[in-house]
């Protein structure tokens, strides 16, 4: 938190209006699951077999300069040099969230060293039935729980990331949050799923009003032990208590094609350099206020967490509201 705050203030003092907060690094698109709501992995086999080299990943981080790197995909643990990538990024002082479905985590733990800059962010879409349904495979929840226990037991930082779709039961999700915290994880991330047009299931994406209702019921009177690894203002946004517009440049995405325009979720083409992405993307075409239909129902953290963080650290009032929200969350 302190590093991000210092980074944001530095950008503000330098007069930068658009700057990255989290690099979304997708070193590969291949995955060992085919989840119902995922539109990231539908490519011809030759492209799925391709991956970024260690040097590509480190160069992208250097080029972008964001203090946090979220390694997504595809399943990053399928990358043959994933530990080397993580080590290289940690050596550069980046905070790494290695997003994984955890199917390979226990086997691969030996390749990593616990570090305050490295967190495994485990994909958990709810209790056993909901999660296995979401990833279309029985037994994945249990495998992930075993991997979380193993990683926590060996001193790694572990968080969870949960994507929600229409039909999620708020009461069951509250019990799920209890279960996750009981495992000893550091925090949780929640977000509605983005309505990828390429995802297998097109029927269960949440509309904005549905997201407000679901998150309000799920997050009202949060249990004291819950810890969300997210801005409290973003959680208020999910509950419909606060309005933000998207900050699509906040989480720039780099993958085998280049720098993805405009954001992690939409693919309107690719820039060859990070500078080209920032300078030559028509940002006014994106976000809720733009009227772009593809942004209409989007409330995903990769676009709105940066907005919430900018609001938190952008003014004294924002800082005060964030502090107040944190106190309320933990009361």
């Amino acid at each position: 938190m302190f590093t991000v705050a210092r980074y944001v203030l530095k950008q503000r003092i330098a007069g930068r209006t658009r700057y990255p907060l989290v690099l979304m690094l997708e070193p590969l698109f291949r995955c060992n699951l085919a989840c119902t709501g995922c539109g990231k992995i539908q490519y011809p086999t030759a492209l799925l077999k391709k991956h970024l080299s260690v040097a590509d990943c480190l160069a992208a981080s250097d080029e972008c300069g964001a203090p946090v790197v979220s390694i997504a995909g595809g399943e990053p643990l399928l990358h043959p040099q994933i530990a080397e990538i993580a080590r290289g990024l940690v050596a550069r002082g980046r905070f790494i969230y290695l997003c994984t479905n955890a199917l390979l985590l226990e086997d691969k733990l030996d390749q990593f060293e616990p570090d305050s800059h490295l967190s495994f962010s485990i994909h958990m879409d709810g209790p056993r039935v909901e999660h296995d349904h979401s990833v279309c495979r029985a037994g994945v929840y249990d495998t992930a729980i075993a991997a979380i226990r193993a990683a926590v037991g060996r001193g790694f930082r572990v968080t969870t990331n949960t994507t929600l779709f229409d039909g999620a039961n708020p009461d069951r999700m509250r019990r799920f949050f209890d279960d996750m915290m009981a495992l000893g994880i550091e925090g949780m991330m929640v977000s509605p799923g983005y309505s990828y047009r390429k995802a297998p299931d097109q029927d269960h994406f949440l509309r904005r009003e549905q997201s407000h209702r679901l998150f309000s019921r799920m997050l009202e009177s949060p249990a004291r032990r819950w810890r969300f690894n997210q801005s409290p203002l973003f959680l208020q946004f999910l509950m419909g208590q606060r309005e933000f517009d998207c900050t699509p440049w906040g989480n720039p995405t780099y993958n085998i094609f280049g720098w993805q325009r405009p954001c992690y979720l939409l693919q309107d083409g690719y820039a060859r350099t990070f500078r080209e992405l920032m300078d030559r993307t028509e940002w006014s075409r994106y976000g809720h206020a733009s009227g772009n239909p593809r942004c209409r129902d989007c409330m995903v953290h990769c676009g709105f967490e940066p907005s919430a963080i900018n609001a938190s650290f952008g003014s004294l009032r924002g800082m005060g509201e964030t502090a107040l929200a944190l106190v309320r969350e933990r009361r």
Partner: protein
Amino acid sequence: MTGPDEREPIPGDLRALIDRAFDYRGYVTLARRDGGPVVGFVYDRGPEHVELFDEAARRRVRLAIDQITGVEFTGEDSAARAQQIWERRRGGLEPPDAQRGAWGEWGEPATGDRRSTRPVLILVALPAELRSVAGVLRARPDGGTARGRLGATGAVALAVGVGGGAARVVEAERPGLVISCGFAGALEPSLAPGDLVLASSVRDEAGESIAASEPVLRAARRVLDAGDRACLAEGELLCTTEVVATAAAKRALIRPGRLAVDLESAPAAHAARRAGIAWLALRVVLDPLDADLPAFAQVVRGSYLAPALRHALRGPRAAAELAELARRVRTASRSLARALARLGAVVGGLIDAERAP
């Protein structure tokens, strides 16, 4: 020279096709004003250009839109396929034991980079073709298979029969490169027995055309075109499901740019493409355009020995016909063997062309 202001405007329907290609999660074939078709995955487009990865996902290609004359959606749409699979099993889960380990369909790499040890798979139809290939691999055919080395690379040659078996074999052998080779009938009057045909694309009877990867073609062309007495021609290969045996039947199939007809290359190319593996179709001309095959050779058979002997016993003309065919088979087999031996020098690089950087 045409300046930017003098360019013809890009028609709206072409622009719409390019937008669709950009949105498409499969390979497309772009026809160009100058030069051959380009096959690849379109991942970027602007007012003046498109960018794509070639089929091996190794080379980026940037094309000016005003050079594109047409777009064909020649590859499978991966997103549509995922949606169909999901629809079929709606609500049903894969059981845990359906996993091939936690690595899913990708399989666990052994040690280091296992792809460097993947063999080249050489697919032929007939045992006679396999014998000439086995000689190059310094291997002895055993039950329709010959395992040896092509250059410094491990190689497996299989006689899969006419038209079939390629998909199963590609799945079983997990090769780094598929070469479909063997005899073909000429559809171009200048091609003689023993001449080589390197397929820039193969077209099946349904009209679907698969273009070969340009880096693979370029490397093959470089070694095949180097001072052999056989002519090397590059163009379209037509793949039929029945033997095209008479001059009249062959003439009916002539199209601009089409060089030869065979029975096996399209299934091999389809199988390789589905598996994301680079492929090459190299054929050698057995029967020229104006030659008829003897009647016994017009039917697909496991062995031609007994029918050939029976044919020879029909009289002096039939015997002469058989002798002429035997001469062509020898010429074609030797030419094919020489060509394969030359490919051995670059085949490791062709496998590398498939590898992720």
